[in-house]
C-alpha cells in the first residue's frame, strides 16, 4: 500500500477503467479508460449531447456509473478510506451560487482550504470582481456569476480541477486569465479535466477523449 497522505512524496493519480453509463436503455458513453497523473490535462471533447457533462459527473462521483471503476491513488473512490473528495474541485454548468447571498458571502461559504489574502485579491482583481463583491448574486450578470464560481475553484487549493466548459460566458480578458491560471495549476503539479465544444479556446491537453467517435 502506498503512502497517500498530503505532503508525502507520492504523486496523486487518477485512473479510470472501462467506464460506461446507461440511462434507461440509452447508452450515454462506454469504454472510457484513461490515466491522469500530476501536471496533466485531459480534455473531453464532443458535440452537444454526447455525454460530456455526464462523464464529468461520473468522474466526480455524483452519478453512479453502470460499469467500470474509478481509482484515486489505486483506491476505488467508493472505498471509505479513499480521500478523493478532499482533493477534488468541480464546477459544472450550475455555478452553485446562492442568489440570496452576496458575491463575497458566496466566496466565503467554502470551508476547506485557507488561501492568502494577497492571492484572493489578485484573483478578484484579474476577474474585475472587486466592485461587485457586495452585490447579491441574483443581481450579477451570467459572466460575473461564472467568474465568482471560477474564483472559488482557483482559490480552493485542491489538486484535481474538474471544469465543465470553463470558458463559456467569459469575456476575452477573463478567458486569458483563466487559461493562464490553469497552466499555472498544471505547472504546480495540479491535475485538470475540462470539457469543451470543439470551437472553444483551451489549453493544449496531454490527452483527449472525443465522445463523438465513441
Amino acid at each position, binding site marked *: 500500500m502506498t503512502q497517500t497522505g498530503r505532503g508525502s512524496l507520492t504523486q496523486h493519480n487518477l485512473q479510470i477503467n472501462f467506464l460506461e453509463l446507461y440511462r*434507461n436503455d440509452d447508452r450515454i458513453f462506454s469504454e472510457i479508460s484513461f490515466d491522469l497523473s500530476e501536471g496533466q490535462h485531459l480534455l473531453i471533447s464532443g458535440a452537444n449531447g454526447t455525454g460530456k457533462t455526464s462523464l464529468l459527473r461520473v468522474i466526480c462521483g455524483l452519478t453512479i456509473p453502470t460499469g467500470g471503476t474509478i481509482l484515486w491513488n489505486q483506491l476505488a473512490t467508493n472505498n471509505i478510506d479513499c480521500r478523493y473528495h478532499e482533493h477534488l474541485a468541480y464546477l459544472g454548468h450550475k455555478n452553485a451560487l446562492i442568489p440570496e447571498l452576496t458575491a463575497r458571502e458566496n466566496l466565503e461559504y467554502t470551508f476547506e482550504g485557507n488561501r492568502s489574502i494577497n492571492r484572493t485579491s489578485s484573483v478578484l482583481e484579474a476577474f474585475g470582481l472587486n466592485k461587485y463583491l457586495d452585490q447579491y448574486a441574483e443581481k450579477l450578470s451570467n459572466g460575473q456569476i461564472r467568474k465568482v464560481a471560477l474564483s472559488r475553484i482557483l482559490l480552493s487549493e485542491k489538486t484535481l480541477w474538474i471544469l465543465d466548459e470553463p470558458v463559456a460566458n467569459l469575456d476575452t480578458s477573463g478567458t486569458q486569465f483563466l487559461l493562464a491560471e490553469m497552466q499555472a495549476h498544471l505547472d504546480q503539479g495540479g491535475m485538470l479535466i475540462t470539457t469543451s465544444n470543439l470551437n472553444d479556446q483551451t489549453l493544449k491537453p496531454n490527452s483527449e477523449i472525443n465522445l463523438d467517435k465513441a
Partner: protein
Amino acid sequence: MNLKSIYKLGSPPLFYKLCIVLEPWYLISSILLIAVGMYGGLFVAPPDYQMGDAFRIIYFHVPSAYVSMMAYVFMAVSAIIGLTWRSNVAFSLAKSCAPIGASFTFLALITGMLWGKPMWGTAWVWDARLTSELILLFLYLAYIMLHLSIPDRSKADRATALLAIVGVVNIPIIHYSVVWWNTLHQASTISKFAKPSIATEMLWPLVIMILGYTLLFAAFLSKRTAAELAVREKRTRWLQTLIVGDKNNA
C-alpha cells in the same frame, strides 16, 4: 439450498426463466386451492353462532389482508437487496409488488367494509385493522406515484426503495398507535375477526384460502417481474434469443 444457489437467483436470465416456468403452476394450484377454499368457506363451514352467515366474508377478507401486508414486507426486503447489491432482479421484484399489493389492500378494505355494514350498521367505523389497511394503501400509492414521477429508471428504483424501507419500519408503529388510539375511543367493538378458538370446519377453508391467495400473488408477481425484467434486459443476447428463438442466431 446453500448460499451460492441463492446468489445465482440474482442472475436475470435464470430468474426470468424461473418466472416463466413457475407462473402457470402457481396459477393453476392457486385456482384449485381457492376453489376448494371457497367451497369449504361458503357451503361446508357452519354459520357463526353470533354473526351468522356474514362471517363467511372472512374467507375473502383475511387472505387479502394477509397478502397485502406480506407483499409490502416482500417489497421492502427486495428493495434492501436491490440497494445493497444493485440487483436488477430485486428492483424488478420490488416494483412489480406494488400494484399487486395495492390491489390486495383494496380488496381487504372493500371486503372489510362489506363485513362492517351488516355488523356495525355502517360501512366504515374507524376500526384499527381497517385504518391501518387504509394507511397501507396510501403507502403503496406513494410508492407507485414516486416510481411513476421519476423518469430515470435506476434513480426511481433507488428512491422508491428508500421509501419502501422507511414504510416497512413505520408500519408496526402506525399499526400500534392506531390500535392504541382505537381502544381509547371505543371501549368494546367486535374488531377481531378470528376468535381464539375456532372450529376445525371453519378453520381449514381459511388456511386453504390464505395459501391460495399467496400462490396467486406469486403467480401475478412472476408474470409482472418477467415483463419488468424483459424491459430492462432487452439489449441482452439471452433475452433476444429467448424471445425470437434460434432465428436470431442463424
